């Protein structure tokens, strides 16, 4: 019994010591930048490649909250994060126009692709537009897996359905409420079609039995912006750090790094600042 008691004593004191560190950490945290961004930049590995370099050069620490664009902008709107990087031009313009965001900078782009089974059973490969491809999918009776999470990709998908004048309520339509990676896996399991950003698709390619069945065209361009948060709305955020991150991302060095980032030998993002 004595031994057991001592063991518990040791465990409790160790736990107490460990928890003191978290309950009473240093108060000053101006070195931390909270970045809300999309799952695509995180899942594709781009941020894991860029941010350590930024952190090493500036001493800041970037904490990434990876979520859909809709939620990311919402977090920024509520002042729960310091800076936001997203890919939904219409929602971003609204965010800036309403006075929450300022200094939006386009830093890079990739494009959306329509993925589907390799043999393309709905025959969308020769479609004239993304909307026509969606129309063919809805007629085919095959599954279409939608992010359904108000992310940038989901917003783009809804815009295409609208263009095709189709209410996405047909029998194969499945709204899964998941991030891009999980959605790709589900589309793969169900052998259905889905809309994906090319970056995440390339990062997942080896694990998928899906092919790009439609791509190209202006409709499917996918620009990313980093947007600062209006200091007048939330004066106590880490605006200095946010600005430093934004400035660094448009620097020639970071822009070059974005162009050089490759997964499985493929370039995922195209740097676009100033273009």
């Amino acid at each position: 019994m004595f031994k057991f008691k001592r063991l518990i004593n040791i465990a409790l004191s160790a736990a107490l010591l460990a928890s003191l560190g978290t309950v009473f950490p240093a108060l000053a945290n101006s070195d931390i930048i909270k970045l809300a961004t999309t799952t695509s930049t995180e899942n594709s590995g781009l941020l894991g490649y860029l941010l350590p370099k930024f952190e090493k050069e500036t001493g800041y620490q970037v904490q990434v909250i990876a979520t859909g664009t809709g939620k990311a902008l919402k977090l920024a709107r509520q002042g729960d994060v310091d800076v936001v990087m997203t890919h939904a031009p219409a929602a971003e313009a609204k965010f800036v126009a309403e006075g929450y965001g300022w200094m939006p900078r386009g830093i890079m782009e990739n494009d959306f692709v329509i993925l589907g089974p390799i043999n393309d059973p709905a025959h969308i490969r020769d479609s004239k537009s993304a909307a026509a491809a969606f129309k063919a999918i809805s007629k085919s009776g095959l599954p279409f897996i939608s992010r359904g999470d108000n992310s940038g990709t989901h917003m783009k998908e809804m815009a295409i359905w609208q263009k095709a004048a189709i209410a996405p309520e047909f029998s194969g339509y499945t709204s899964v409420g998941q991030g891009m990676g999980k959605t790709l896996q589900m589309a793969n399991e169900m052998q259905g079609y889905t809309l994906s950003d090319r970056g995440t698709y390339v990062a997942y390619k080896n694990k998928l039995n899906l092919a790009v069945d439609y791509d190209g065209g202006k409709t499917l361009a996918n620009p990313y912006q980093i947007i600062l948060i209006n200091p007048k709305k939330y004066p106590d955020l880490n605006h200095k750090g946010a600005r430093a991150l934004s400035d660094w991302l448009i620097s020639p060095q970071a822009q070059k790094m974005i162009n050089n980032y490759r997964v499985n030998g493929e370039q995922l993002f195209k740097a676009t600042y100033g273009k």
Partner: protein
Amino acid sequence: MTESWLSLIQQAFGLLFSLDPGTWSIIGVSFNVSLAALLLTLVPSMVLGFILAFARFPGRWTVINLVQTMQSIPTVVIGLLAYLLLTRMGPLGDLRWLFTQKGMILGQMLICAPVLVAMSQAAFTSADRRAWETSRTLGAPWLSAVWVLCRELRAPLLMAIVAAFSRIVTEVGCSMMVGGNIMNVTRNIPTAIALETSKGDFAQAIALGLVLLILALILNFALGTLRGKSEPRSH
């Protein structure tokens, strides 16, 4: 799946034994947060459990039922509650605890307190009231009478602690919502497993799952030993 099961498990053990910093940081976050939440809740919860077992006061029935209800609420709902409290627009928004370990600790405290209260109340209720009354009439001070009682009940009380700890160290809903799954900061074992699975990378998820499995084994065997000692020996 392109990788075989065997190679996945090999990779998982590799991550654990090579002391991969990413994997161990996740394990550290889990223990840090859950132990802090448990320690901060422990004494007040057990005191409440004691009061509910021994005292009779108006509203006791209501409190007991509220505790039971809290115990059966899914952790995502508690996560939602903690999120709404901690977001800047919420009543505790000024603390700026959203997406920090402190926020996660708060959420986990809300999750483990009802378990501790309910189970310690059951333990205290099962105690022989006469032991308590005797030591009190013999002039034992209040506190040392409680201490005697707690020692008497160490097995069921420890069981309450283990149950509360397992509930918080394995919950994913509240941690994901309130912590935000930030690498090296708020990414704990359950949220990391959810993320790695969504990425289709299973090695780290398996490594972390193994840690939880081993922890469960250790805790339950330790409890089993303790219970064995406090039970009358069978011949």
